[in-house]
């Protein structure tokens, strides 16, 4: 048992007052959750403290909230860890000491209804409905099941793992700037259909999401949603997959993001470091063909980038000016090692999905790569650790 102070941002809509902070002292084991702390405060001190919750085990998605400024689930955040973070944050701002209040707020990017209860319907769910969130298969279903690649189902199971808690939406910086951004949860949901081989509208879906100015190119790669997601859905990764697929299907990207990414990848593969003299050309006029007959857009973009380049030179951001001459940029001496990394990445491409690669990149290498299967024979004695 340990004592904690939780500081809750409260709002009682019927009081006529604005939001206010209230502190509650709670007493529980550090391994219990922030939600357990809130429920103790509710049970003992004030039953009017409103918080949605149900499963307590991070599967129902009810208790999205901000804890010490970070979006997540109340039930999945241990109160002891929340205390450590609160103390760390306090020392970073020079306050220091132990036992600082754990700060709990309703989720961001959504209107607050009461205390920690937000209006998910008008924000989160409206955005989910925006992506046509149901399977659109070809014609009549088969007599038996659809036969599909086994990996394809595992692949989309990562976005199926989404519990619609809204933590990613709460944390999304792009949405703070553009309220109309379709957002991480809905786009992860979209990938669940785009990646589903049973769905017949892949191209239409990608076009729809690419053409919308608040669609897949509105994400700024800030990683907030990946940090916030309690289920390892990694919404940003799903958005990047949507972009890649859109690029593969030749769908024009107003930011040329896909071509830019491909140019980056190609140059590094060739030279080991980034040759900036080629980056712009390769992004807008890729390959020999692109340079032989550049598109109007390529010419416009290249000309349009000249002022930026001049500004870069003036402010000293671009220094090795001779490297701007194509062909001057040297190759890295041990370029073969770089190529080996590419080959490895290519081979293990599917492991970028959490359901395949395991927890935090920890692949059971001895099991998988060397083909050693652990015995499941009941007669094989197993080491037992007590405690």
């Amino acid at each position: 048992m340990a004592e904690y102070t939780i500081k809750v941002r409260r709002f009682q809509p019927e009081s006529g007052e604005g939001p206010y902070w209230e502190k509650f002292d709670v007493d529980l084991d550090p391994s219990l959750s922030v939600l357990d702390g809130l429920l103790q405060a509710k049970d003992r001190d004030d039953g009017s403290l409103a918080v949605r919750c149900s499963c307590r085990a991070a599967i129902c998605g009810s208790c999205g909230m901000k804890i010490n400024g970070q979006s997540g689930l109340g039930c999945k955040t241990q109160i002891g860890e929340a205390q450590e973070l609160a103390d760390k944050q306090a020392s970073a701002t020079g306050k220091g000491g132990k036992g600082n209040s754990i700060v709990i707020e309703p989720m961001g990017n959504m209107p607050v209804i009461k205390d920690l209860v937000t209006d998910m319907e008008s924000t989160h769910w409206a955005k989910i409905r925006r992506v046509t969130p149901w399977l659109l298969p070809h014609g009549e279903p088969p007599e038996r099941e659809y036969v599909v690649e086994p990996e394809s189902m595992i692949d989309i199971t990562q976005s199926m793992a989404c519990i619609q808690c809204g933590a990613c939406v709460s944390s999304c910086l792009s949405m703070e700037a553009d309220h109309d951004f379709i957002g991480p949860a809905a786009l992860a949901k979209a990938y669940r259909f785009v990646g589903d081989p049973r769905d017949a509208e892949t191209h239409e879906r990608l076009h729809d999401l690419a053409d919308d100015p608040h669609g897949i190119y509105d994400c700024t790669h800030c990683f907030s949603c990946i940090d916030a997601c309690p289920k390892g859905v990694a919404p940003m990764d799903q958005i990047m997959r949507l972009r890649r697929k859109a690029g593969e299907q030749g769908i024009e990207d107003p930011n040329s993001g896909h071509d830019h990414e491909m140019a980056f990848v190609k140059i590094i593969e060739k030279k080991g470091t980034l040759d900036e003299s080629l980056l712009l050309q390769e992004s807008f006029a890729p390959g020999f063909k692109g340079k032989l007959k550049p598109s109007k857009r390529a010419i416009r973009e290249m000309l349009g980038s000249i002022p930026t380049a001049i500004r870069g030179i003036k402010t000293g951001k671009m220094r090795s000016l001779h490297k701007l001459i194509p062909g001057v940029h040297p190759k890295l001496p041990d370029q073969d090692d770089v190529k080996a990394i590419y080959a490895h990445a290519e081979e293990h491409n599917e492991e970028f999905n959490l359901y395949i690669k395991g927890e935090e990149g920890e692949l059971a290498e001895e099991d998988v790569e060397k083909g050693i299967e652990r015995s499941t024979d009941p007669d094989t004695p197993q080491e037992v650790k007590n405690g």
Partner: protein
Amino acid sequence: MSVGIISKVHPVRSHSNAAQGGINAALNPGDSWESHAFDTIKGSDYLGDQDAVEIMTREAPEEILHLEHLGVTFHRNEEGKLGTRAFGGASAARTYYVADITGQAIMHVLYEQLMKYSEQIARYEEWFCSSLAIDENGECCGVVTRNVADGSMELFQAKSVILCTGGNGMVWKPSTNALICTGDGIAMAYRAGAKLMDMEMIQYHPTTLAGKGFLITEGARGEGAHLLNANGERFMEKYAPNKMELASRDVVSRAEQTEINEGRGFPDGTVALDITVVPKKRVHEALREIVLVGRDFAGVDITREPIHIKPGNHYTMGGVKTDVDGRTDIPGLYSAGETACVSVHGGNRLGANSLLDTLIFGKRSGRDAAARAKRTDYAHVSRKVLEDEEAMIADIVGREKGSGRRISEIKLELGQTMDAKVAVFRDEAGITEALEVVRRLKEEAKTAYIDDHGSVFNQDLLAAIELGYMLDNAECTCVAALERKESRGAQYRTDFPERNDEEWLKHIDLEQTDDGPEISYSEVTITQWEPQERTY
């Protein structure tokens, strides 16, 4: 036809999420519905009604294919066809699954379909039901609800009402169940005069985390995990030499509790589940959710060390008595899923049969409810039922602070009492004591006060109403457990340790009276499987 779905939480927050392991169906060419039916009936300790079990197991394959066509991302085998895993009490690997989020995947796909058909089906998300409306002919004609968002009360008129409100796990503490599982539908039907059945049959799941009660899926044992006592012995050898860890849940839970009671458990009152014997890649692919549960809620990396577990409250086999089309004793009132008791699970439910029960009998209830709606007219609904509910709420809100106990105190005493006295092992003295406590708590609940007097999201008030539901559920379970003087399935009476088919191969039905539940009996339907001795 106009259809509305009323749910006290947003539908995707519902507890079917927690069904991790999968859903059973005899879909493989080498398997048969008869085998699935026999396993279910044997699992039920012969208390399941065999006509209902036949329907469920025959219709199962079609239902799996239907879900697959709607978009559920079921696991595939190497040929790209639906793949299966092994589960407890089953004679074939017939459990279809999505990693260990099967219930979640199914429910979210069904919600996708609700969004698709939003023109045809109205959704009332976060509306709380407080009672059923019954007309002068004794037929169900609607429900009284409270809109959680603003506290307004509404009487929904309906030609058919289907109760699918889940089980009553919150009556026990700890429980694997979600906080919303307070037996609402069971209590509402009981108060309206419908019969309840098999209320003594409460499943304790063999693998739950000590203290918090979180579930570790049976899929773990399906994938080959072992149960070990503190001496490192694989103790299931003694209790179920053939099926070992994959015996029926009641059998495994009793074995664990025996080990713990006889001093071969760990000091924290647990035994160990060893998942390290399952290949790591397979664990990450098929048991990812419990890797997270182990890490986040127990601080254990299940791929490296055994995790401490114990039997914990998990499932309500009993419930509102229905026929195979979901019809209760009250015309117009239907029930399906954990709320209902058809009965397909009898004394003990097999793993991966709960989603199936819900889907099959949910579908059948829906069809019959629709047919009834087409052939009947709206009944006259008296506004009195709405006024009664408003008065009930005004009474709760009007109680003065400190006038009685806090709702949370009563809930805690109820949960702890039930877990101590009406759990894996039961006897007359313990159940009687629990019943006395429940009846005292029912009195105390009448004066229990709440803090929140507002209209918007008044969860305090809803908790007070839920407490009433829980106490009715608890009383019924105690009465039925006291009545059944034998051991069958989840009901193990240390004072009557044998199964007694001669006297007790029958259901216990309960009906509300002013003096508490009135007991009657109904026959168990037997089609082709005569009761046998049950070993695994």
